[in-house]
């Protein structure tokens, strides 16, 4: 009985602490830099300065903090911020899938940093 409980306890400990085998993190390489992706794709709807393009329904992205940009990009690429929550960007999620198929993928943090450093007007 004692042994059994010890086993249970240890299993729980490992589950909770997540200290078992970590998934091998695949090294992801991207075909284009964030700047190339932006200039060749994003620019059409978000504008050359991130100011937005009304007729394309592309919102301005030149006032958001890096953190806001990162959360939005996570939502777009992951299709939601929760385990099963709906995305807040359903059209862009669709567009992003199409862009990724064409090689226009990017690291979320690098893209957020690029957009913020290049276009932000609130600094």
């Amino acid at each position, binding site marked *: 009985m004692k042994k059994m*409980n010890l086993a249970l306890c240890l299993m729980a400990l490992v589950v909770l602490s997540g200290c078992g085998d970590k998934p091998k993190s695949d090294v992801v390489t991207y075909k284009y830099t964030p700047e190339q992706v932006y200039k060749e794709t994003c620019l059409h709807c978000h504008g050359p300065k991130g100011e937005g393009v009304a007729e394309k329904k592309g919102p301005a992205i030149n006032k958001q903090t890096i953190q806001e940009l990162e*959360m939005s990009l996570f939502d777009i690429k992951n299709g*939601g911020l929760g385990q099963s929550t709906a995305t807040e960007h359903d059209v862009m999620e669709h567009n992003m899938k199409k862009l990724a198929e064409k090689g226009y993928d990017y690291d979320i943090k690098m893209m957020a940093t690029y957009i913020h450093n290049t276009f932000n007007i609130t600094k």
Partner: protein
Amino acid sequence: MKSDKIIEEILIEIEKHDGGMSRRHAMKLLAASPIAASVIASATIATEAEASSSSATGKIVIVGGGLAGVATAAKLTHRLANPDITLIEPNPHSVSYQPGQTLIAAGVWDKSDITYETANFIPKGVKWIKDTVVSFDPKNNKVTTADGTEIGYDYLVVATGLTLNFAAIKGLEGEITSMGANDVVRKKVGKDGVYSVYFADGAVDTRKGIDELIAKAKAHKGPEKLQALFTDPDTAIKCGGAPKKVMYITHDLLKKAGVRDKVELTFCPSGDKMFGVPEYNAAIFEQFKVRDFKWEFKTNLVAIDTEKKMATFEKKWLEKGEYDEDLKEYTMVSMSKLVEKKYDFIHITPPQKAPDLVGKSPIGSSKGWVPVVKETLQHVTYKNVFALGDVAAVPMGKTGGSARKQYNVVAENLIAVMEKQEKLPAAYDGYTVCPLITSIGTVAMLEFNWTAKPAPSFPLDPTQERWIWWLVKVYALKPMTIYGMLSGRA
């Protein structure tokens, strides 16, 4: 690691639920024990490798005394040679074990099984102020409580948790927490076929509600099935698995009562998938098909008429628009319409948000959640402020399992800030765990992180429903959390 205390608690749990552990079960568990044995070494090293104490000083104020806040207080108490910690929390039962609410609905636990006195878990030396923070003034490093007291700090940790926003659904009222006052919500929820396990009393009501559904199904005649709906809102929620767990539990209880064929179970989530991890998503689809569950994606509950037993959902979809020369694709147009569904039983997962007193304060954000660098958990604007748990703006991070990883990160990084270190040493990777209850007796232990890939702690296929994980869920996770995590040691 207070392992003796934890084992003792596990024993109590097992004895309390007499009959839960049959001979057959015990055999299976022993068969699995070599796996457990293989991790003894790493577990021991991990707990003994606690860093030596820091001589950094400064006044730390922690707002919120749930699992995240208390565990952070405990960890800082261990790590600092001269801790000066104040914890502000109004609720005497703030440390309740919320993961047990689904087990209450399943009839396995009572409310008393998840209720704990916060007073017993406040670390020695920590000053506890039993009040609510009503304003944050991060520029002047102070907060104000409801009775008007101003409390200054050098360092602030925000761990207030979130608010269950039932009022966002037309026809319902109230913004509550899982263990606080809930009379307003219970005017409509917890009776007449409308239930929610998202607060402790609601979980108790849900158990009764499932019994009522069974009774109704037994008396039901005719070819048309009774309708049971299960919702999942368009906001971030705590425990992304719970909306589905309640469905599995309801299915299991209906089946055991012999009336499963009289009821149609339909999942109506706002999203368009079962789970953000493709492997788990596929596994859940299979589990749904085997159980003859129905589902309608992008169907978000917006209103309910509890008199007529009619729920209104906003159904969304994308429609093909014009061809876009720049994108070299057809554009998509977002469409929506309202659809009504009659129900005999509905389980509501309420929309959730940061408490307005936090979300609309200077430390909040346009979306409410406290904006932090998601790896370091440091506030994006105020470097002496950290946030963790449900209130932090962190993707996929609203579970006890995430808080369990986050409090160590906050404690280590806060100490680094106190020591004036340039670089913050600890980083959260988005780890979280969803012990998905798939029946009363089986659980799939879904562990993952921001890579959206499975991150199992054990060399077992995580997509499989297993009895062993049910045992861990029912007997071991609570003692581990209450006596391990809350003492800042596990």
